């Protein structure tokens, strides 16, 4: 992140507050290119949209807890802790009476580990010369992030469409090409999904 033009303090603050690896990585090239504020935030928002599904899936488990506790449990959830919680809920290893305390423990451990690793990376990167082109690591990290999700046809169709449209529309101002690409991809993926399996059970019912 520091190589993306952020100072050490800003990078640490970003990691502490935003706490969403994929959204941070997606925002980074836009910050470097001097994209407008709303474009950067909107990009982060689309990248975070999957959490809406996660929060819907978690809701029944924490329905009787206070609003503040539900909000805290939601904010500190990640892809990893959500997956762990859902797996434990299914195989019955979750404590019956206090599943929220179990989740809070997992999430706080995950938060501390994540922040310590992030700080190590932020400080370490400030010792690497800029002309090594280390900012390209951010793009490569996105490749590593996207790769495993390309395991179903709708995702592949969506990604290909999104890439093509974003590439062709890149001369548009305000990085609008990115949005055209993302929207074309999402529409393509949704249509492919509908065409592939007409009435699948909801992911929320399955989890």
């Amino acid at each position: 992140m520091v190589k993306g033009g952020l100072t050490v303090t800003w990078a640490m603050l970003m990691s502490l507050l935003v706490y969403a690896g994929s959204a941070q990585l997606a925002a980074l090239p836009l910050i470097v290119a001097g994209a407008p504020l709303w474009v950067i935030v909107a990009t982060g928002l689309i990248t975070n949209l999957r959490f809406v599904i996660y929060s819907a899936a978690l809701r029944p488990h924490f329905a009787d807890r206070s609003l503040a506790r539900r909000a805290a449990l939601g904010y500190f959830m990640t892809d990893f802790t959500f997956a762990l919680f859902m797996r434990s809920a299914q195989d019955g290893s979750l404590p019956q009476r206090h599943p929220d305390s179990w989740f809070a423990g997992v999430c706080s451990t995950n938060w501390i580990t994540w922040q310590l690793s992030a700080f190590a990376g932020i400080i370490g990167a400030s010792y690497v010369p800029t002309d090594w082109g280390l900012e390209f690591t951010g793009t490569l990290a996105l490749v590593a992030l996207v790769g495993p999700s390309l395991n179903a046809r709708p995702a592949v169709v969506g990604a290909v469409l999104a890439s093509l449209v974003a590439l062709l529309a890149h001369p548009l101002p305000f990085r609008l090409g990115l949005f055209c690409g993302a929207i074309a991809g999402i529409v393509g993926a949704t249509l492919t999904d509908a065409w592939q399996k007409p009435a699948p059970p909801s992911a929320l019912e399955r989890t």
Partner: protein
Amino acid sequence: MTDPVSGIALGLVIAGLALSTFVTRTSFLIAGSRLRLGHRVEVALRYAPVCTLAAIIVPDVLLHPPGTEIDLSLFNPRLIGALAAGLWLCWSRNIVGCLASGITAFTLARLYL
């Protein structure tokens, strides 16, 4: 494009991104049963990250020099790096190896091509 975002603008970017994390992660936990998620919407939300990230990665890799023209030749170091990282990912699911091979290929291509 203009200069990198800094100062107050950067603070606003961080605040906005933090807000987007908070709103998406707490949406249903806070709103409870007042929100409903249709099947189509749920499918669209599921594929949103993959599509957005692809729309960021591919132009970043193929436009060379950055933000100019599409360069599909092997003289584009970012393409070499991304191909190496992608191939490594197909071969093994190891993320560290994927990053290491990508960075190595990118650096070699940048220095010697």
